[in-house]
């Protein structure tokens, strides 16, 4: 038997090329940024321009790729369905905003021009991670994404907080990826495949697989839960959010969370929500528990925070809880997938915007913005104050904002799935969340500004980013029909 029969040479056809093109573009753009960064004086500006352009064009390409039919590369290592293409588009748009947000922030925080390259790299990693259904390839993509993020987090080199955050994130992340890896290998050992589809096929044919499959699945789920920052794997979230430069935090809060959750939902859909496998019921219960715990823990601890980035970090844990709720509903109801994507998208938008606003009031190397420093900010800078208010209300799920639409859709699908008690928990905890979101607004608008009130650092980029995401938040809050329709379409 000739070896070339076993391993025939691979040729990409046009449509496959098109769907890979954004990735390629991103990688080249990243390299270009690295090169442009060598310019001592205007390196940052160059890198900024290049990365912005790259993202812009890759978004266009990605949108164009939507027209192509579904494509499975290399035996389903990479799957370009309408869903994966859409979510990669969303992620790229987040990166786009993040790049804008970084511009100006980088000089202030002494971030090197490489950060733009890293953003592009991590974006590429994210896209891969969401597009693959191959566990080990997912691990590789995850690593690419995470390595870039580790660097970005630790990048404020003159700030000890940044270094500490980087260390924490790295250690725990390494542990998590190791868990993922070992879990993968156990799953492989139990089912003989890395492909999610094949594994679920296998499970359908073998309703009670071997015990190590469950262990492996447990480890994998643990790793993913860590990445999305759910209780009890949330330890890194507040510290890292606080220690990283605010633009990086915004990027993480939006893109990383989005990606990790997408990948997680893919895994869960294929490995947990399988008909007829008795043992998996326990994993659903586990997700139920984690969801409840995240909602309660996140909201309750956020209440006792006095620093806003940290507070948002805890609130993000709570939002993870809500998302897990939607995820849990996926196997019960059908339209949950769409609503989860919507919620993630809206939440990420407002999150990014919030950090964009915050970044404009921070001194260099500042750990965080305390509430006292926010006293009277809204009255001093009405527009930014209004934007932040909008974002906070959106996270709290008050109408007029996209967050309300997202929350509505999510809870609605969960109730349709018949999971009322969990929704009641979610609702009650979100009352708690309303309290601490309001507290920020109260400080901004209802307290007189004092001596220690933060001063406004003119950051054009951050302002633009905040404005864009505010506009989007309002737009999707009032006229969400188009996007809802679109998501419904693709999630079919």
């Amino acid at each position: 038997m000739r070896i070339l029969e076993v391993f025939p040479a691979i040729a990409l056809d046009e449509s496959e090329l098109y769907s890979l093109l954004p990735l390629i573009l991103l990688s080249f753009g990243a390299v270009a940024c690295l090169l442009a960064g060598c310019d001592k004086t205007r390196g940052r500006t160059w890198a900024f321009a290049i990365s912005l352009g790259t993202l812009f064009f890759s978004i266009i390409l990605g949108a164009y790729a939507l027209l192509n039919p579904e494509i499975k590369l290399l035996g389903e290592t990479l799957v370009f369905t309408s869903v994966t293409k859409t979510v990669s588009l969303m992620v790229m748009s987040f990166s786009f905003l993040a790049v804008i947000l970084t511009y100006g922030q980088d000089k202030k925080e002494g971030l090197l021009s490489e950060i733009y390259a890293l953003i592009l790299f991590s974006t590429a990693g994210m896209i891969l991670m969401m597009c693959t259904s191959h566990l080990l390839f997912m691990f590789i993509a995850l690593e690419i994404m995470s390595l870039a993020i580790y660097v970005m987090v630790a990048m404020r080199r003159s700030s000890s907080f940044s270094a500490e955050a980087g260390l924490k994130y790295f250690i725990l992340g390494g542990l998590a990826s190791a868990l993922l890896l070992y879990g993968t290998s156990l799953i492989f050992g139990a089912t003989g495949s890395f492909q999610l589809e094949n594994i679920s096929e296998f499970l359908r044919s073998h309703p009670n697989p071997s015990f190590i499959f469950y262990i492996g699945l447990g480890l994998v789920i643990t790793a993913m839960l860590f990445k999305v920052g759910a209780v009890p794997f949330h330890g890194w979230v507040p510290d890292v959010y606080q220690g990283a430069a605010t633009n990086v935090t915004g990027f993480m809060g939006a893109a990383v969370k989005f990606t990790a959750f997408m990948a997680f939902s893919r895994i869960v859909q294929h490995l947990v929500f399988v008909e007829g496998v008795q043992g998996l019921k326990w994993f659903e219960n586990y997700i139920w528990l984690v969801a409840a715990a995240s909602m309660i823990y996140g909201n309750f601890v956020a209440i006792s925070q006095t620093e806003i980035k940290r507070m948002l970090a805890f609130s993000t844990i709570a939002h993870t809880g809500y998302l897990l709720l939607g995820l849990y509903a996926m196997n019960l109801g059908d339209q949950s997938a769409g609503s989860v994507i919507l919620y993630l998208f809206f939440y990420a938008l407002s999150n990014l915007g919030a950090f964009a606003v915050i970044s404009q009031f921070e001194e260099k190397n500042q750990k965080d913005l305390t509430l006292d420093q926010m006293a009277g900010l809204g009255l001093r800078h009405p527009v930014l104050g209004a934007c932040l208010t909008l974002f906070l209300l959106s996270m709290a799920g008050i109408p007029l904002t996209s967050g309300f639409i997202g929350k509505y859709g999510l809870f609605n699908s969960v109730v349709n799935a018949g999971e009322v008690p969990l929704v009641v928990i979610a609702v009650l905890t979100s009352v708690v969340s309303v309290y601490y979101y309001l507290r920020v607004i109260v400080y901004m608008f209802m307290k007189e500004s004092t001596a220690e009130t933060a001063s406004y650092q003119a950051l054009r980029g951050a302002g633009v980013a905040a404005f864009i995401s505010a506009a989007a938040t309002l737009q999707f809050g009032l006229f969400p029909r188009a996007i809802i329709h679109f998501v419904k379409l693709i999630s079919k």
Partner: protein
Amino acid sequence: MSVAIVILCVLSAMLAITMLFARNPVTSAMCLLGVLIMTAGIYGLIGEHLVATIQLVVYAGAIMVLFVFSIMLLNLNNEDTDYLKHPGVFYSAILLGLVVFGFLMYGLNEHFMNHRMDYQHGQFTPDLIRELGGNSKVLAHALFSKFYVSFEVISLALLIAVVGAVVLAKRKFD
């Protein structure tokens, strides 16, 4: 099963334990190196020569050097005994580790008792590999045909590593 493998397994296990409890980072680094080399040996013994080589080259060659180098750089050869400061934490962690290990053992046992024949076995029986021209050739072909995307993507990881290392460790700020 060959005696050599058993010996290697036992040795690497002991080395690992030593690594866990060694006071001095350098010692632990050496133990880790030993473990890695033992693993390479095991790979070799079960006939995965290419993997064994890579293991030796990359791990033992590159990574461990990096470690030792940075230990020296930051002269970290002072003793680290802080982990014994809180015996409660220590023993509970050990206990938890044992629990995990127990679970794994249970699982593996259960797997190899009942389930090892569950799935369709691959085509690459040793004689097929031999027919195709040996382990290395097969893997090389596979790497560049079926898995080329992964191969390409890995380059991103390395690039990031380079950039990151530079960015973070560069002494002079601009």
